[in-house]
């Protein structure tokens, strides 16, 4: 379970200033996958980064009673000059994996299916290959909550199916909080939804309601 209480966030700096998130109160129950939806700039990624502990709120608290993954996205997380294998090893080590390192690498390799590129520098990867590696890497760990920031957007059909299967498989033990503009995948993977609008968040028990509401508020259908 993840609890967010009275959370405020804004970005400081010469151009920042306005609140990105204002007075957010949310409770993410265990084993319920949630889709975050909203316009560009509504604060979806910011909220995900805050949940992932990558960033700190200006006010309020986030109470994480679960093992939460890092936000799986396209940017960051990998060093371009190092190979996929080296990056995987590094992330495994900072998560405390020692003895089972080889097993973990095999699992990542199996999921990512990027063949020989696994031993080539990440900077040579296409965005689809990066997201395969990122997703495979996070799924190799036993998190309670996986955070995905558009990581599925660039995947092909086979990869999306694979990601879906992987989550369906662990539907009883893990959940997903995802940011995506792909409504198909949101409906496939999430049960509940959170709509972000002008810094405020609204919880919907059904993802379909959230998407419908989003369509209504964003004007044209």
């Amino acid at each position: 379970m993840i609890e967010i209480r009275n959370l405020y966030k804004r970005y400081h700096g010469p151009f920042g200033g306005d609140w990105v998130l204002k007075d957010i109160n949310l409770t993410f129950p265990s084993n319920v996958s949630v889709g975050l939806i909203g316009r560009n700039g509504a604060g979806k990624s910011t909220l995900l980064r805050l949940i992932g502990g990558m960033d700190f709120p200006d006010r309020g608290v986030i109470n994480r009673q679960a093992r939460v993954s890092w936000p799986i996205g396209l940017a960051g997380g990998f060093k371009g000059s190092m190979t996929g294998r080296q990056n995987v090893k590094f992330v495994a080590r900072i998560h405390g994996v020692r003895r089972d390192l080889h097993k973990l690498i095999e699992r990542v390799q199996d999921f990512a299916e990027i063949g020989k590129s696994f031993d080539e520098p990440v900077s040579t990867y296409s965005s689809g290959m990066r997201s395969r590696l990122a997703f495979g890497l996070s799924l190799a760990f036993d998190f309670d909550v996986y955070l995905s920031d558009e990581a599925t957007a660039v995947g092909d059909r086979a990869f999306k199916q694979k990601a879906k299967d992987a989550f369906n498989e662990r539907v009883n033990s893990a959940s997903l909080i995802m940011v995506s503009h792909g409504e198909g995948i949101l409906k496939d993977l999430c049960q509940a939804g959170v709509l972000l609008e002008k810094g405020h968040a609204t919880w919907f028990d059904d993802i379909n309601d959230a998407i419908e509401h989003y369509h209504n508020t964003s004007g044209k259908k």
Partner: protein
Amino acid sequence: MSDMTQPMPHEPRSAMRVTWDVWSAMTLREFIARTTADRMAWFWMIFEPLATIGIMIFLRTYIRGSRHIAGAEFIPWLIVGLMGFYIFKACMTQPMGAIDANKGLFTYRQIAPIDPVLVRCWVEGILRSFIFLLFILIASLFKVDMTAYHAVGVLLDWLSLWALGSGLGVLFSVVAGLVPEAGRIIKMLSFPLLILSGVIFPVTYFPHQAQEYMLYNPILHGLESMRMNYFQYYQSIQGIDMTYLWYWALTSMALGLMMHIHFAPRLKMR
């Protein structure tokens, strides 16, 4: 699926354990990055000080004429000073880029901005120590006598210079993280410091009044103390005091760590 046995440890790790895991992983990564960044990485690491020593020997032999240092051979004297200065400089300047270079890693909440900084100080220190040993070896092959008179003292002075560089490195990594212009200025200062620390020209050549002011520079204390331990009959100036150096090292380290704690969110976000 039956092979879903999870390799990740189930019970939460202690804070110390997380830090240890992060440091060991980052150390490996940093070593790989430093030594295999390009094909010539190793070559430059050794050639750069070698070239500097070559140029200095040339200058001192043909232009300034005299190579006389009271109580020490010129070449070993120069190698010791230059190596001591390099470990200081590497530990001071390399951490400044560490936060920027590892920005992508803050995706993982286990990693704090202080981690890449400390790891760089550590890795740089190891690499420079290795190069120093290599130079002693090379010099011996060329029949230059490089045996230390008081080896334990040299080692302690070496560690002190390492600590001084790391202390300032930790401090400047925050300063350069918050004010990028400061980083450039600090890097620019390293050449004047080379002269003011008596690396190339012996501090005894300077007029007495200048020496008094030069003693405010803690690097000078470290280098001269190391040379006095290295060469039995080496004559330095009055007032060399390692306690003074350690004041600098510990003060800057403490201040740097406090600033790291205070500014961690801002350093992560930049």
